[in-house]
């Protein structure tokens, strides 16, 4: 059937510059560029281009430009090009439209409507280059009070503390499974986390055996509805266990790793047959209610000898704050909430673009809810989904998060351009693919260096902003909405965020 959808991108090749090296042809796994030996020139098929810019960046002659196609349908406010084309694709295939990465729709990004405070006169701002500036954070349950005994001025702690994770900077790598991303990308995340004093999350695809001894100390392992790759060693080699209930990119639905991506190594790690689809059901089939979750939390604590904090990750949806409160009471030490703009390897487009609520509002309402119930200290909050820069991190913390997870941001640091074709197994950047020819493009040392650099850069920027506010420990900013003001927000939005308007 002839497709009635025209190409998304237009490839412009400067024939003067092109040296027919065929680099672009090799770089593009989608087969966009082909060499015509007769004419001795390269031909590009706009229809195949996904706009990942790999060929543009790797062309030694800087001869290629990829830009959105100038062709357009008759402008129509209701029938945008995207709506029209999605409909055509469905008419042609009869299927669900798949996509990758996070929600790209113009929902209000609250980070960009919140401004930070700074000290003037009455409170000296602190120069982080000269004074200590502390970002160290502990994630996990804290007791209501500490019982101590004092003997001859020597103070002994009598309270038994729950296990906590210590991070040197409040930024952790979000759950991205081996299988969804390549081995090299997975290893780069692990390497950078260990180097930078933070944690990576294995996602639901298990942790390869050879990585456990070296990287277990900075791993959070996930237990998801598919239960892939879980054994006692997996749980115990890590520093924390996360039960994944939901994901911001696709709340309410499960996951599907296509058989093409299930290579021998992936199959072994996930403990499934080679080449079979790895399907994570929408719910955990042993969790149909909060008491079932409480039992799984207990079981995991039992399995890890009460030495690891248990995190529960949920998507931010309408009534999530009440649910999260129940999760804390069910024994979770950490709540990870994933917002509307959270990324994914694959999700139905309709779900990704329409389900869930923005993370900024979610952080604030969860923090408030737990405070009102007097249980805020019983758990830590890790916020995920749409963190793009250090100021997003600091605003998340001032709204009440203890730390953030970054997923898309980490992938972008490694080279991702958010082309949204993660499900195709053809990632030209070697990140989201199991094709050895492609994944080999990602050098673990370079990629992990880029990730460490990112954490270092953001940490420095956070220290600068903190110092400007006259605060020298991040814990004094947590939930401190006094340092935030809203610009261009409605009253109800300020109410939910719990912040004043600028100038108020």
């Amino acid at each position, binding site marked *: 059937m002839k497709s009635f959808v025209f190409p998304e991108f237009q490839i412009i090749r400067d024939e003067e510059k092109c040296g027919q090296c065929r680099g672009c042809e090799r770089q593009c796994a989608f087969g966009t560029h082909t060499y015509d030996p007769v004419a001795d020139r390269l031909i590009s098929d706009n229809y195949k281009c996904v706009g990942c810019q790999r060929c543009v960046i790797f062309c030694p002659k800087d001869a290629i430009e990829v830009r959105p196609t100038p062709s357009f349908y008759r402008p129509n406010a209701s029938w945008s090009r995207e709506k029209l084309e999605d409909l055509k694709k469905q008419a042609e295939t009869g299927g669900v439209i798949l996509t990758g990465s996070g929600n790209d729709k113009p929902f209000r990004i609250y980070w960009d409507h919140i401004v930070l405070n700074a000290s003037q006169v009455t409170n000296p701002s602190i120069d982080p280059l000269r004074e200590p500036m502390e970002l160290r954070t502990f994630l996990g349950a804290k007791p209501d009070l500490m019982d101590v005994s004092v003997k001859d001025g020597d103070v002994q702690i009598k309270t038994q503390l729950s296990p906590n994770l210590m991070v040197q900077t409040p930024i952790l790598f979000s759950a991205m499974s081996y299988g969804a991303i390549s081995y090299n990308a997975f290893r780069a995340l692990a390497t950078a986390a260990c180097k930078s004093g933070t944690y990576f999350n294995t996602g639901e695809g298990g942790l390869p055996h050879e990585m456990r001894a070296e990287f277990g100390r900075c791993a959070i392992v996930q237990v998801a509805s598919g239960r892939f790759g879980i054994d006692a060693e997996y749980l115990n080699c890590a520093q924390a266990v996360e039960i994944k209930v939901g994901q911001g990119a696709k709340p309410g639905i499960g996951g599907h790793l296509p058989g093409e991506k299930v290579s021998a190594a992936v199959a072994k790690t996930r403990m499934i047959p080679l080449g079979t689809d790895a399907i994570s059901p929408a719910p955990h089939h042993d969790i149909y209610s909060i008491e079932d979750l409480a039992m799984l939390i207990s079981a995991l604590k039992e399995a890890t000898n009460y030495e690891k904090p248990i995190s529960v990750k949920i998507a931010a949806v309408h009534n999530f704050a009440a649910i999260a409160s129940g999760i804390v009471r069910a024994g979770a030490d950490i709540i990870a909430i994933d917002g509307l703009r959270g990324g994914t390897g694959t999700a139905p487009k309709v779900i990704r673009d329409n389900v869930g609520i923005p993370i900024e509002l979610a952080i604030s309402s969860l923090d408030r809810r737990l405070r009102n119930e007097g249980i*805020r200290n019983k758990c830590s909050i890790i916020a995920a989904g749409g963190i793009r820069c250090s100021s997003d991190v600091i605003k998340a913390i001032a709204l009440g998060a203890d730390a953030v997870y970054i997923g898309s941001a980490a992938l972008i640091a490694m080279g991702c351009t958010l082309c949204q074709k993660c499900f195709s197994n053809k990632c030209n950047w070697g990140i989201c693919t199991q094709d050895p020819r492609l994944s080999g493009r990602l050098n673990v040392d370079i990629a992990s260096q880029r990730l460490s650099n990112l954490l270092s850069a953001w940490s420095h920027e956070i220290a600068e902003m903190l110092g400007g506010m006259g605060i020298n420990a991040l814990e004094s900013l947590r939930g401190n909405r006094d340092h935030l003001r809203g610009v261009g927000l409605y009253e109800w939005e300020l109410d939910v965020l719990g912040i004043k308007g600028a100038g108020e």
Partner: protein
Amino acid sequence: MESDITMPRIRRELYNKEICACSIFGAMNRDGERFNGEGVMLAIANMHVRGNGLGGGFAAYGIYPHYKDYYAFHLMFTGRSHQDKVSAKKELDGFLSSNFDVVFDEEVPHRDESTVSDPPLVWRYFVHPRKEGDDAMLNDEDYVVSKIMWINTRIENAHVFSSGKNMGCFKGVGYPEDIGEYFMLDELYKAYTWTVHGRFPTNTQAWWGGAHPFSLLDTTVVHNGEISSYGTNRWYLEMYGYACTLQTDTEVIAYAADLLMRRQHLPIEVVAKIFAPPIWNSIDRMNESEKKLLTTLRMVYAPLLMNGPFAIIIGQTNRMIGLTDRIRLRPLTAATRGDMFYLSSEEASIRLISPKLDRVWTPNGGEPVIGELNSIRKVLQ
């Protein structure tokens, strides 16, 4: 079918925080000998330029020996008109008589001719808790605190600003020496510990409740500085039932001290390490047991770290404590002479009333200086 349920909007957390620079002074006779307020008024007047006449106050320990077994509530009734103040008092009287046995009450005596402006009606009550129903489970102090929080949040124009036994706070809008004059502290009261505060708020909206000291039961705080962690401290304290209603960041220090010392029984040395902990680089170099203690303290009590510049004097029945923030952004000088123990923003003020001193020193940032009564029994008997 029409629904008559309307969902109320969550109220935005529109609290106001006033910020100020200040002078602080404290004098304590560690033998429990009581002395009048003349000296401390002179000392704080010597730091006149550190304030701007928009707030001054005193805490005095040992002033009510005849009523030492009763909680001494100092109430402030504010409002535009005399009628507002009287009606707030009427409401308060009703609440007090149904929750406490009031053994004596009177208007706090004052000089009419003094220089303060727009004074509220200030009244004192000596009360004994009358616990009934569910409240019978509470100990006296928790009961008193819960009732104070109720009054401060529910009764408009009424504020309890002093509530300990055998002690009292006096405060208002004006220079501290004027406030002392107004309440006749140089004539009517003798205390073994006095702490004083002169205020320089950057916010001109002056109200009497916003002056220092801030107090809860017998704990009083005078503070020079700005707590930049206020929002964080506040939510943590709210979880434990402390309502921050007085629009000033200093309030959180008083409540935090009450939570940690009275309710959780932590010694002051530990509390100082919670308010102004050592930096992680130092903790990491400590021996194992110290490291464990301080790491745990910072972990558990992170929301009570007092960030931003401060010097504070905390008063309690049996001690007076001086503390600065951990990078010492506000001045504090300590001195002793015989049984006298002094704390002050400036040494000159101490020298003014005690030219000869046995020892004068500048405490390090985050390091508490503590003066304790030689014998607590002397003041309790």
